[in-house]
């Protein structure tokens, strides 16, 4: 049995090719064109940057692993996420790349060449891909490929990724480079002698400490460190030895004391070289003719037209999320119910069946039910992004978002939050900087998602008389409007406060590229949507499923055998009576409801509700409402059903008159009514502000890279909700309202 295994690793490793590039350069399209659809998407350990990889067949080189790096304008890093690109390119702690593709937009080559230059400095073989060659040709831009190859030392290939043009040639060049690796001379930056000495000193230190062994790489890393490290440690970079950090800060300090601006010198020297290359190898028509993009922008970013267009586009997206997803959601819900009935029909009643039906199947349903909205939202985001409109939307609305410390790009996630926080949190990925992403996903669950609506409807219908009105507006309508207004105000205020407290430091700079309008490729678009859905199902879905089961157990156990026995006896008694079918069924349903109610009251959740009553009583809630709130953690709308069960009314929905009636009749032990209008408003405020949704928690955990921020969100939202409800209820009582 003990055949020795072949050694793993070095011997059989496949060549590794990394793909770097600016955002909007067509990098994803090129990656898809190169590798087809067999893309694996994973996360880099510990951070939320996706690592897309695939294998490609290269003639003569066999299977090659291709990895897509996060899109960046430069390698200088301000966060662990941005650091990934550099570490991968240098092969620090990971496999060193055998070749690096840099995808550049041929119509804006200078910016692409800046990144290319940074990559060339590392000294690995580079293939420069001039993508968007069709647009460059259309704009009359002439690029001298042989000259570029000579000047940069990289191989240069022109492509039109969206049409697959040049992709075969690129594959051939990759194979060639892998087959005949040759040393690449590092580009010669013209630094002042003093800054050159700074870089050399740091590189020498890196070499003596043996962090890197190649002179070129050490020098490249030294420049990167000098540009990226902050003396006060606010750079968020990880894995940099303390002694090295000290050395960097020391050199920076000495340079600035001597009046040298290292940042400016290094960056400017790079652009000097880029400009030289541009002059020698490209001809851009002097008089730019008014491009299509310019003419479209004259309308879409016009003072009035721009606002109208923005409103229309957002309206369509919002409407789609709200109404187009609905039929699919309903279909999924009926399918889940069907499966549940099926399981109940074939399995004997008992704890296992209950676990399957109410835990597992319901849990899977809880996951799948998000798919329609996720798919729709990402379809629209992908479409708008690829068209080029998403950047314009951010441009138009940034002034408003800025006021609360949010980025213009945060608008679409915030808007989708009104439909459902789960896809909305996922869509914060369109934000480039981690701080912007975190801030947006932390406040976004405050926007009033559609699952809160049934709760509001039940409560308003219960506590306000159908005829009552305030200044001619129906009280219920006013309360609903108030909740939406509250959610917007709360989200914006929270953003402002969090920006100043838990996510402090200078707000990340707003630099937004406005790419030309382009025609999207549908197949790439759909592929992107599918990748999102799949990652959601795998990463967040498992957590949601597990939480559903835990919650189900809390709401169902321990079971009191006496309750069951009593119900059985009651049923037998009813069966023995001479009744017509209808009357008998009514009696039986009644017994079922009482039984479920008794079990719930006896469960862990029921006991927790009672134990917590002193805590929530100041908000105007008794323990039964507490149990409803606990149950609502599965999904807010479940509040209605759970509340029904506590009050012995099964199968209740928000339009259920018996449930409303029983709520109106409900009293505190001293006989005073429970659901006064004031208590109702307090409960709605609580629901508006509390993080009553485990799926949101699960998705924030995934998108923020750990439980830390997810739990922080639950904590701050709960405190906020509690404080606000307390204020409403106690303040209201003090003013003598709603008694």
């Amino acid at each position: 049995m003990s055949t020795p295994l072949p050694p793993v690793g070095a011997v059989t490793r496949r060549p590794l090719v990394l793909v770097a590039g600016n955002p909007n350069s067509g990098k994803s399209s090129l990656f898809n064109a190169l590798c087809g659809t067999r893309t694996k998407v994973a996360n880099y350990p510990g951070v939320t940057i996706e690592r897309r990889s695939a294998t490609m067949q290269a003639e003569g080189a066999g299977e090659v692993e291709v990895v897509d790096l996060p899109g960046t304008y430069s390698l200088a890093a301000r966060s662990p996420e941005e650091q990934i690109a550099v570490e991968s390119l240098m092969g620090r702690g990971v496999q060193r790349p055998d070749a690096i593709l840099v995808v550049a937009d041929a119509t804006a080559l200078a910016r692409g060449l800046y990144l290319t230059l940074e990559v060339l400095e590392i000294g690995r073989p580079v293939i420069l891909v001039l993508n968007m060659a069709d647009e460059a040709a259309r704009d009359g831009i002439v690029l001298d490929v042989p000259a570029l190859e000579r000047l940069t030392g990289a191989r240069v290939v022109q492509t039109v990724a969206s049409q697959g043009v040049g992709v075969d040639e690129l594959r051939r060049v990759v194979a060639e480079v892998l087959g005949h690796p040759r040393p690449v001379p590092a580009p010669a930056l013209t630094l002042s002698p003093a800054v050159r000495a700074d870089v050399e000193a740091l590189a020498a230190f890196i070499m003596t400490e043996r962090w890197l062994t190649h002179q070129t790489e050490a020098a490249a890393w030294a420049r990167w460190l000098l540009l990226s490290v902050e003396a006060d440690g606010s750079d968020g970079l990880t894995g940099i030895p303390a002694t090295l950090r000290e050395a960097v800060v020391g050199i920076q300090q000495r340079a600035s004391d001597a009046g040298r601006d290292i940042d400016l010198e290094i960056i400017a020297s790079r652009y000097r070289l880029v400009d030289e290359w541009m002059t020698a190898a490209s001809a851009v028509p002097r008089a730019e003719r008014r491009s299509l993009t310019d003419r479209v922008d004259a309308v879409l970013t016009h003072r009035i037209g721009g606002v109208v267009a923005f409103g229309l586009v957002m309206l369509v997206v919002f409407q789609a999320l709200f109404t187009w997803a609905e039929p699919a959601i309903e279909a999924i819900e009926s399918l889940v119910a069907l499966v549940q009935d099926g399981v109940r029909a074939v399995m004997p009643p008992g704890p296992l069946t209950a676990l399957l039906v109410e835990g597992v199947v319901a849990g899977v349903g809880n996951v799948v039910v998000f798919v329609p909205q996720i798919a729709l939202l990402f379809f629209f985001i992908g479409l708008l992004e690829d068209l080029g409109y998403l950047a314009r939307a951010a441009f138009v609305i940034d002034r408003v978002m800025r006021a609360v410390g949010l980025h213009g790009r945060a608008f679409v996630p915030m808007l989708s939050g009104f439909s459902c926080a789960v896809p909305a949190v996922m869509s914060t990925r369109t934000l480039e900087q981690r701080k912007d992403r975190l801030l947006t996903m932390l406040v976004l669950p405050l926007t009033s998602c559609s699952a809160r609506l049934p709760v509001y409807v039940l409560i308003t219908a219960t506590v306000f008389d159908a005829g009552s009105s305030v200044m001619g507006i129906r009280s219920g309508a006013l309360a609903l409007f108030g909740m939406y207004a509250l959610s917007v105000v709360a989200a914006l205020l929270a953003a402002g406060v969090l920006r100043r407290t838990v996510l402090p430091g200078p707000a990340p700079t707003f630099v937004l590229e406005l790419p030309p309008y382009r025609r999207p490729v549908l197949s790439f678009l759909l592929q992107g949507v599918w990748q999102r859905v799949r990652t959601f199902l795998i990463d967040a879905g498992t957590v949601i499923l597990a939480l559903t089961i835990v919650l189900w157990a809390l709401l169902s156990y321990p079971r009191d055998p006496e309750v069951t026995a009593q119900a059985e006896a009651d049923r037998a008694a009813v069966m023995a009576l001479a009744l017509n079918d209808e009357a008998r069924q009514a009696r039986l349903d009644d017994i079922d409801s009482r039984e479920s109610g008794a079990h719930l009251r006896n469960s862990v959740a029921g006991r927790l509700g009672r134990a917590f009553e002193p805590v929530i009583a100041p908000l105007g809630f008794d323990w039964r409402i507490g149990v409803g709130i606990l149950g609502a953690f599965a999904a807010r709308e479940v509040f209605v059903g759970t509340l029904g069960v506590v009050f012995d009314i099964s199968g209740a929905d928000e339009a259920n008159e018996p449930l409303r009636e029983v709520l109106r009749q409900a009293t505190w032990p001293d006989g005073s009514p429970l659901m006064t209008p004031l208590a109702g408003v307090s409960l709605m405020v609580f629901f508006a502000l509390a993080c009553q949704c485990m799926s949101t928690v699960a998705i924030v955990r995934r998108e923020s890279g750990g439980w830390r921020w997810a739990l922080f969100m639950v904590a701050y939202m709960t405190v906020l909700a509690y404080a606000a409800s307390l204020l409403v209820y106690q303040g209201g009582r003090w003013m003598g309202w709603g008694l």
Partner: protein
Amino acid sequence: MSPSSHRLLARVPVGSTAVVCRISGERPVVRRLLEMGLVPGTRVTVQREAPLGDPMELRVRNYALSIRRADALRIEVE
């Protein structure tokens, strides 16, 4: 204050072109703007402003870059 030949990019009227001289301010912001190609000596055209007056759209190195006025106030041009 800056010498009289220097103006701030935020004050350059729409449609005009200027040349970057100097960027001042917090290091991460300056570095970011430099890396986007706004190094001294670069020609920048102010293309338009957003409907609400901020941010503004620049044309630099043959691409369209949008920055906020607050950042354009750090950029001296001539």
